Structures are given as structure tokens and as C-alpha cells.
């Protein structure tokens, strides 16, 4: 049961943790090593799922629009145009980040939670290492860096998926090409990138907070992992409303 007091306490603890995290690393070479590792673990390892999901969603959006929206009164380019806008503005940023909140968020929360209950974080603290900075900052920086690449891959994969529907004969390549080129606004692509970078911060920081503050045993690690996914998903949806309002 979420209480107002509990939410305020959580917010305060989150802000304090971020205060400890977002500081200059003790050793830049150690930070860079961790940063590259996290980019690989959180970003590179997510490319597969991003490509697969984006490909099929691109294809399905294209088919749905063709089958349900297009009519003799609609221009031909509607299918390509709508698919492009959905991929650029919402799917490749917001929906893809919701999916990544599940994959990356649970991974981070369970990793840090396990480190907490096995006293690995205490070991870092006793050595005089700022454990929050050492463990969390590379994750935040790593995912925020690689997120624009994931968004670009997602858009490209979705559009390829849409093109592939032409093999089924429902839409033609020409129809799609006209729509994809129709009044293309480059800013929409950047909107998607900006949104995804903000979501990357939400996913990594919230999941890190939930993992870092675990108390207890394996059951609590599991709960922390679930909470991380739920909370970061909800925050992404809230942020989506505000960012859409601000950016478009």
C-alpha cells in the first residue's frame, strides 16, 4: 500500500542517492571501464529485442492502418505517413523504453539488490569508495549514451517492417514511399531522441534506487526488481505527457 508519507520518504531518499551518484568519479579510468561495460551490457545486449519488437510493430501498425483507416476518401500516403509518425513520435521512444524498463530495469535492480544483501556494497563503502557513484553513475551515463542509437535502430527496423508488409500484397512500396516522404519534419526524430534519453535516466536511476536500497534477502531483491519496473514504467508514462506537451 503506497502512502503519502512513504512516497515522500522514498522521494527524499532517491534525491539524496542521486546527490551521491551525480558527483565526480574517484578514478576516471575506473569510471570509463565501468561506463563501457554498462553500455555493452545495458545497450548492446538490448539491440536484438529492440530490432525484433520494432520490426513487427512497424509491420502491424502499417497493416492496421491500411485495413482499418484507409478508405477511398483518404489519400494514399496515409499508411506510410501515419506509420512513420507513430514510430518516430511514440513507439521508438516511449513504448520501446517501457519495454526496456522491464528488461534493463529489472536487471539493474536485481544486480544492485544482490550486491547489497551480499554486503558487496558495504565492502565498497568500507574501502572509502563512493559506492553510489561507482556503481550507478556508469549505468546512467551508459544507457543515456546508447539510447539514441537504440531509438535510431528501432525507427529503422519499424520502417523496414512496414516495407516488408508489401510482400503480403496489402500495401505497395510506392504507397509507403510517398507516405514516408510526405512532409517529413526532422524535429520529430530529435523529439524521440530527447524523450528516450530522459527515459533512460528514469529507468536507470529508479531501478538503481530500488536495488541499492534493498534490505533483507532474496524475496526483497525480487520485490525491489518488480517495484523498479512498475515505478519506472509509471514515471515514463507521466514524463511522456509532459515531454510531448513541451517538445511538440
Amino acid at each position: 500500500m503506497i502512502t503519502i508519507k512513504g512516497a515522500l520518504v522514498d522521494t527524499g531518499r532517491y534525491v539524496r542517492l542521486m546527490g551521491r551518484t551525480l558527483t565526480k568519479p574517484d578514478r576516471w579510468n575506473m569510471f570509463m571501464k565501468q561506463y563501457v561495460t554498462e553500455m555493452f551490457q545495458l545497450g548492446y545486449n538490448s539491440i536484438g529485442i529492440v530490432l525484433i519488437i520494432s520490426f513487427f510493430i512497424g509491420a502491424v501498425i502499417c497493416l492496421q492502418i491500411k485495413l482499418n483507416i484507409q478508405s477511398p476518401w483518404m489519400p494514399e500516403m496515409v499508411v506510410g505517413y501515419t506509420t512513420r509518425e507513430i514510430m518516430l513520435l511514440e513507439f521508438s521512444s516511449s513504448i520501446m523504453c517501457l519495454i526496456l524498463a522491464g528488461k534493463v530495469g529489472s536487471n539493474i535492480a536485481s544486480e544492485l539488490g544482490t550486491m547489497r544483501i551480499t554486503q558487496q556494497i558495504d565492502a565498497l563503502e568500507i574501502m572509502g569508495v563512493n559506492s553510489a557513484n561507482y556503481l550507478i553513475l556508469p549505468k546512467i551515463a551508459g544507457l543515456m549514451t546508447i539510447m539514441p542509437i537504440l531509438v535510431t535502430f528501432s525507427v529503422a527496423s519499424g520502417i523496414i517492417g512496414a516495407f516488408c508488409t508489401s510482400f503480403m500484397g496489402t500495401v505497395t512500396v510506392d504507397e509507403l514511399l510517398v507516405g514516408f516522404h510526405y512532409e517529413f519534419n526532422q524535429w520529430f526524430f530529435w523529439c524521440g531522441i530527447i524523450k528516450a534519453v530522459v527515459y533512460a535516466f528514469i529507468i536507470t536511476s529508479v531501478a538503481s534506487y530500488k536495488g541499492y536500497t534493498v534490505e533483507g534477502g532474496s524475496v526483497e531483491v525480487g520485490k525491489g526488481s518488480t517495484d523498479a519496473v512498475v515505478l519506472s514504467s509509471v514515471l515514463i508514462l507521466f514524463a511522456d505527457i509532459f515531454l510531448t506537451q513541451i517538445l511538440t
Partner: protein
Amino acid sequence: MIKIEHLFKSFDGKEILKDINATFENGKVNLIIGQSGSGKTVLMKNIVGLLTPERGQILYDGRDFVKMKKKEQILLRREMGMIFQNAALFDSLTVLDNVMFPLNMFSSMCYEDRVKRAKHCLERVNLPGTENKYPKELSGGMQKRVAIARAIALEPKYLFCDEPNSGLDPKTSIVIDELIQDITHEDNITTIVNTHDMNSVMGIGESIIFICKGIVEWHGSNKEIINATNKKLEDFIFASDILRQVKEAQSTH
């Protein structure tokens, strides 16, 4: 030397440590003993700074750890080494990287010297040839020895061991105890060991404090403990019938 003066700690209004006073001497293995739930882990966590006491002083060679600024505490922590109950090795790093970790973070040595130092520490705990293994590939006793190697990598002035023999067989426990004792004497370290293992008490307890319900009930050495007259200490020591029989046999001779 570490000196504790009038230390109090409570959780949710319940006092766990009540006016603890103790002195842990340099170059000696100092033991904190007591039953589970007596407050010895809380005391150790206060000493190393994982918990903050409500009142009292923790003096590291005269420097009050409680009143220090955060930055000073971090600097002092670099003079500490700690061996945790479950070793707390970093799973994602190899044995060599685990031992090199404090060196990588805080020493100004070049890479070759850091590797040399880490290998020297591993040799000291009798673990040569395990450099490229991961912690999960090692036995419990070997993990503890790697934890000791990591703890001494930066040549600490203070060494803390939280139940170092927990989960180990008696023979391996003796090996770990002897290792801790040798390192303490050779490097002239102030070592504090938190334990309820009577073999450790009798083997390496050069200076012992006995805690019961958050109060220091007795202090002395392993030579004095068998003949101590404190009732609570007797109950703790002679909980095992074997030790009681040994004492009775001694008194009849």
C-alpha cells in the same frame, strides 16, 4: 589503537548498545564475543562507520571517527580493511581483480606494481595460481582467504573481521585464524574480530571483550577466560558440554 568511549546505539527506541567502553590494542588480535543478538555486529558496524552511534566516541589513534567530516572519514577508511562474514567478493571480477580493486582505486602505483602487489597478497594467503578464477569457482575457505588478501592489499592499519569462520569447517577455521593472527603480528595492525567460535577465542584471543545484551560484561585474554567468574560469560563459554568437561578435568588434576 582503537578506543571506544560511552557508545550508545538504539533502533526504534530499543537500546542495542548501552555505554560500551573498550580498548583494542595495536599489534594484537582483539576479539568481540557474545551470543547471537548480543550487539557485537552492531558494535562492529558502528566502529567501521556503517552505522552512526547516538552518543559516544570512536577514537582511531586519538582521531574521533564520529565527529569527523565525511571527507575525513573517507580518508580514514582507506586505512581500514574488512573481511565480511560471507567474504563479499565482487562476483563480476576475477580473484586478481578483486585483490587489485583497492589498489586500482586508491594507489598511485603503476599497473605492473599493482599486479605484483596483488599477487604478493595472494601468495601471503596461500592462494597462488587462482588469479584468473572467479569467486564462484572457489570454496568458502578460499573466498575468505581472497577477502583477507583484498583487505591487506593497501597495507591497512586497522583490520576488521566479521565472523570470519562462519560456515567453515574446524580445520579451515584454524587456517583462517592463524592467517589473521600472523598478519596482525607481522604488520603490527589493530585487528578486531567479531566471533562466537570458541576455537577462535582460545586460539587467537589475545584481548577479548564479552558483550551480553549490549553491555560489556567482561574483558581479558584467552588465558584468563576459562577461569573467569562472570556468570553470563560462563553460560556462554560452557554452553558446550565438552568445554565444561575439559574445565572439570582441569580442576580435578
